[in-house]
């Protein structure tokens, strides 16, 4: 049969960020997909040569707007490891709280965009309405909605008062109730299932071989999460990853939906166990050495390689974002699918292209 090449993106109604896919199609079936990246490269890694290691915190936060807190957390943990700085326990718990709130708002954003990808506009608006409550918590406690800028090397910049903790618990309880109200629509609705079940299947072996991370990996039956390594306060709080076994778009959305509720539980637990004490330890000197740190971003495992030579500038900052790891599995999922399912499958990896290109 005659083959046609169809460009998908970089400007496409379903894509929040520019990803170009060259789709080879036979009739309405995709037989091959080739990606092109590089539309939003900003050269943030190179900036470590002109900005000092403290200023880099604000720069790595801008790698990704949605998970800014976790980028800064990963960078700060790396520099602390190099310098041998002991972070106060309270700061670790506060980092966990803000990190998990970031995960909740990112997953709610994604669930909304996913609903939008298969044309369910009202569900999109409902998810984003709940998300606004989480953004309010962020604004009230950190001073900004998205790029919260609370992490510093040695701890955090802001503290939570007992009144704020109580208010967060109230807001989290309302948000949880509102999210649970939406569970029957995103998980049990006939139309939603028709668009997601069996679309973009990634088998357990494929997920392992192609190096999928995050909800992609857990949606295919692997119980692996960087939070198990016990960064921030996870070593004390304990953590069990959420796993689904079908490996299709529906399984991935179910993983993200259940993780949203799990993260709200972690926030509550961390607030309940929040220890008293300092929020930042004093840091003296300049870093010298190299390290690798990993944290779990909403999209998957984020990895930082840091190398410092004892000057005020870092020698090398290498960032590997989860979307970069999830593009090979995406290319394995696309062949064989129908053209109309491409937006759903592309969205199901939660693409963050600006992250990937840094």
């Amino acid at each position: 049969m005659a083959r046609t090449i169809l460009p998908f993106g970089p400007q496409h109604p379903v894509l929040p960020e520019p990803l170009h896919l060259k789709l080879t199609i036979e009739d309405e079936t995709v037989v091959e997909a080739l990606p092109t990246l590089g539309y939003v490269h900003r050269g943030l890694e190179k900036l470590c040569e002109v900005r000092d290691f403290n200023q880099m915190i604000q720069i790595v936060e801008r790698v990704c707007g949605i998970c800014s807190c976790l980028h800064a957390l990963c960078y700060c943990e790396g520099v602390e490891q190099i310098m041998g700085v002991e972070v106060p326990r309270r700061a670790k718990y506060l980092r966990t709280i803000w990190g998990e709130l970031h995960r909740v708002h990112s997953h709610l954003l994604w669930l909304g965009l996913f609903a939008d990808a298969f044309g369910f506009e009202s569900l999109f608006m409902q998810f984003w309405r709940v998300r606004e409550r989480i953004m309010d918590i962020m604004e009230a406690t950190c001073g900004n909605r998205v790029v919260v800028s609370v992490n510093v090397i040695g701890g955090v910049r802001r503290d939570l008062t007992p009144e704020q903790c109580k208010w967060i618990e109230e807001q989290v309880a309302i948000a949880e109730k509102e999210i649970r109200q939406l569970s029957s629509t995103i998980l049990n609705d006939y139309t939603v299932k028709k668009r997601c079940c069996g679309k973009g299947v990634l088998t357990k072996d494929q997920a392992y071989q192609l190096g999928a991370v995050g909800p992609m990996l857990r949606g295919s039956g692997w119980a692996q999460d960087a939070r198990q390594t016990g960064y921030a306060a996870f070593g004390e709080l304990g953590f069990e990853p959420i796993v689904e076994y079908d490996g299709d778009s529906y399984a991935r959305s179910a993983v993200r939906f259940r993780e949203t509720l799990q993260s709200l539980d972690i926030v509550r637990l961390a607030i309940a166990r929040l220890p008293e004490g300092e929020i930042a330890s004093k840091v003296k000197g300049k870093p010298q050495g190299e390290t690798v740190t990993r944290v779990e971003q909403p999209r998957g495992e984020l990895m930082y390689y840091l190398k410092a030579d004892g000057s005020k500038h870092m020698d090398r900052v290498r960032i590997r974002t989860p979307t970069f790891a999830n593009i090979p599995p995406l290319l394995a999922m696309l062949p064989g699918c129908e053209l109309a399912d491409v937006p759903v499958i592309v969205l199901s990896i939660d693409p963050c292209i600006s992250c990937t290109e840094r």
Partner: protein
Amino acid sequence: MFNMTKNVVANLFSKSSTRLYPIAVRGHFEGFRGTLHINIDECIFCRTCMIKCPSQCIAVDNKAGTWTCEAMSCVYCGVCVDVCPTGCLSMSKEHRPVATEKQTMAYQGVPKKKKKEAAE
């Protein structure tokens, strides 16, 4: 079907879920980093804010006694407020209004004289 009827009835009698925007404006929370302010009389022109600023939007001239900030380049991280030794920098919770031209905050103060010059 029955669920839907229940929702329709509930929606008819519940209050609006959106804000009537121009009449009801959402304020900001306490501690929101909205706008940067400087009390130029207290500034000692030490240039710490200029050195620490990650977006390098602040320029301080300690001889002429000027403090300028490119408001459009500022990322509102609040680092300058944290490091200011005299506490003359502060942030208010109201954000900058929409502008059609690039704005620069420029202040002229009195530079501190060196001990020798002051003695003369």
